[in-house]
């Protein structure tokens, strides 16, 4: 029965922090596509790109999490997720592996976390050597309100 509680995550790395996104939500992994900037867009929106004929909105996850910019943008990777039928490309530092984790082991988000981290975190797994923060895509993309406050 433990299989029912098994959730597979794609692990991603942002500023040396390990994050996980449920594997079924990941549509694509990209590297080095040219971005078109969108003036006047929220700071978290890095631009738009063409993914096989679809226009994908790129989200700068570092900005979203209040982290400094990655020094050289070339090195970054992107993970394409879909939200309400719209594709979004999450710009991250690196993609790791796929981990199968038991939902029973998911710990609640520590209340002391930074607000914008708390918003997007769906809980924390204690891996042997690291902590893995589960990213909630829906919350991650809902930055209209938070960006206003920041501004």
């Amino acid at each position, binding site marked *: 029965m433990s299989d029912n509680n098994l959730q597979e995550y794609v692990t991603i790395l942002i500023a040396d922090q390990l994050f996980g996104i449920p594997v079924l939500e990941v549509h694509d992994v990209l590297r080095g596509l040219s971005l*078109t900037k*969108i003036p*006047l867009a929220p700071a978290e929106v890095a631009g738009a790109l063409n993914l096989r004929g679809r226009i994908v909105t790129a989200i700068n996850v570092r900005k979203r999490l209040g982290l400094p910019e990655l020094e050289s943008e070339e090195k970054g990777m992107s993970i394409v997720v879909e939200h309400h039928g719209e594709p979004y490309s999450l710009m991250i530092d690196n993609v790791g592996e796929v981990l199968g984790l038991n939902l029973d082991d998911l710990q609640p988000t520590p209340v002391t976390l930074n607000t914008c981290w708390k918003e997007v975190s769906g809980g924390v797994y204690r891996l042997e050597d690291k902590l893995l923060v589960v990213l909630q895509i829906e919350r991650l993309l809902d930055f209209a309100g938070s960006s206003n406050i920041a501004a």
Partner: protein
Amino acid sequence: MDDLLSEFLTETNENIGIVDASLVVLEQDPSDESQIDNIFRLVHTIKGTCGFLGLPRLEAVAHAGENVLGKIRDKELTVTADVVTIILEAMDVIKDILATIEETEGEPAGNDADLIARLNDVAFGTADAAPSKVEPISENIDAGSATEDELEAAFLAAEGPDEEVRPGEVSLEELEAAFLAAEGPDDVSAAPVVTNEEATAVEETKSPTERTAKESSISNQSIRVNVQMLENLMTMVSELVLTRNQLLQMVRGMDDNEFTVPLQRLSHVTTELQEGLMKTRMQPIGNAWSKLPRIVRDLSHELGKKIDLVMHGAETELDRQVLEMIKDPLTHMVRNSADHGLEIPTDRTATGKLETGKIVLDAYHEGGHIIIKITDDGRGLNSEKIKKKVLESGLASEAELEGMSTQQIQNFIMRPGFSTAEKITNVSGRGVGMDVVRSNIEKIGGTIALTSEEGKGSTFTIKIPLTLAIVSALIVECCGERFAVPQTSVVELVRASADSSSDNTIEMINDSPVLRLRDHLLPLVHLNDILRLETAADEVADQSEVKGAEEFIVVIQVGSFVFGIIVDRVFDTEEIVVKPIAPILKNLSIFSGNTILGDGSVIMILDPNGIAAMSGDAVVGSGHTEKVETNQGAKGDEKIALLVFRAGGQDPKAVPLSLVARLEEIEVAAIEKANGKMVVQYRGQLMPLTMIDDDVKIVESGRQPVLVFSDQDRTMGLIVDEIVDIVEDHLNIEMTSDKDGYIGSAVVRDKATDIVDVGFCLQKCFGKWFGDTDTRPFGADGQKQKILLVDDSPFFRNMLVPLLKTAGYEVSTAENGVDALKMRDHGKSFDIIISDIEMPEMDGFQFAEEVMGDERWKDTPIVALSSHTTQRDFDRGRDVGFSDYVAKFDRDSLMSVLSQTLRISGSAK
């Protein structure tokens, strides 16, 4: 064949196919309630539509069938093979009748009383109906196998077409043909079962082919395809086009490549595929009109009017999406025409018109647009009523209305909250009127115009783009980023420079760039400012020093607001497919969408409306966006451009823009004193500076804005505090001023504004200008000489009036000879008349003859003022009685002629 009927045939044939299949399923599993519900609903629909179309035989059969099905649904009747058989029989009869209708467009003669009686027997149990010999199918069939059965049954019922056509194999031609005939999306939603399962739909429509096996069968010429599927196909084709383009680019470099020929073929096919798919989106406008005859019929009963609705060009095609959006506005306008436009029969006959009023709908293609005209031969718009209403609602003042043309007054009906219907009727007059129509049409990039003649009728002309999906867009670059501007709103492109080396120079009014474009002053916006890309721009400028050397201006028209967008570069135009932007960016009104260009990159599409809204703030500075209309239509006949500025105090002051030669900012340090007056070295000359009154403060250091007036070789500068704006408005001087330097006060953009007397300023600077004894007005001792100035050009009147006033005359104006003669009839008299020669209605020669031919003004000297100054003109002028003849722009000789003429006539008295 009638569109409605053919739609009905297609739909009913499909529905019957489904009913057939479902009945078989139901027979096998009578407990399946969803099936019976579905069948009942479909048969009910068939019955309902028959009734609507007036097909009584079909209706009767369907009705009887429905009765039986109703009983089954209400569990009053058990499903048995007999019951199913008789319903199927009813369906077969319906099919036969449909087939006949398809051929003859009418129901066949005949009687189904027998069948109906049997159906009723089953329904109401008069015979030994509901035999219970058929056992219900055993309960323990599990869900899985039931669906399998169903599927199989469905396939059997579909009577397998010989050539099994899978959706993928439907040829483009078929698809095309299908979609030309296909119904609008509302019909699609009306039959969700069909659209949700394309595969079934395709099969179902195929089955009638088998049945009738006739050529030209209408019901199999169209299939229904989910719109979503078409959209997906569209995306795929776009992708194909991109790939094709990439391949072509790769091959272009190499000559005589083995790929060249097949690539060309691929390219051709792709283009055709793309065009074909585009066509599937097109629908005849008749679809949007189909409901109108009924509406008009009902209206004519309700209103007691006789109305004849004529429709031309119903086959004109346009994009489905556009069609949807104009449906309601069109309906609304036809209602309006019927309600407000047409009179009741007795009124019509009284005015000598035919009793039956006519509403004509016209549609045709013109360029990339479709033009729809709605014409009625009714009473037309009553300008007086509109005026009254305008005054009541405070949309304009009486004075403003006075100066408006009939056309402008009529256009008030497009303003929000405006309805001329005196009573609120069921039909119209609820205050949601033409403004909603207008905004709806403008939303899809269309325009609406109105012409109306009182007593004769009105015509509304709507111009809308053919499709929203594909637009031609101009690609521009700003700060290294590319953007697309929809071509439909681009009026022209202008190359300009920031220095004065070229013809087109960008000038600044208080940091707002403007451009003189022919006879207009065009407000400009920097795209980088609007998009807040200036940091990047500054970097570029620093690097290359090119900023300002040469710039491109895209002249945009939004409604009646014309403005220019300054961009760095202009590329080509491209046909683009507009895709909506991501929901999280929806609040960016500046973009109307985005798209993928031929080279595969994403590009944002600028929304001219959004830019206009934003630039309104940027240009005007105080939220008067709506009113900064350049109003191309009126071409300044009624309105004149005024330059609004502040000088001494907060009250705005204005001067006709046409009198201003340039706007400059001068370094305060450069102001020198000469002969006790302020002067500045300007373009190699000394330019005297003056101030309107002494309250104007010159800043201690930095730059001071100056209005430059020039006349031949003389220039002067008027020092002001701040240049506020350029507005087009009516110049109605409501209060004359006794203060020096002001002509009076007028309402300019809802604010009381002092109109500056340029003549006074000129005089102040060049005291001698009008000071010569020769040009002094005769009899200048206290009593002013009265001049009548007759000229049709408001510009000219505006220019001359202050000058003449400055010279000490009392000036009245008339627009043309007719108006002037009216003044004579009112008993006014003048000392001298200055008249233009070229005028509408009555030219100067005629006018002079009229004046000379009547006792009252016979002795008043007339001076002709014209740009035609040949000897022949002079001679003709003198023949008809002009005392003198002056070239139009020769101010000094005008002054001396006036003075001399007056002296002569004065001494003659």
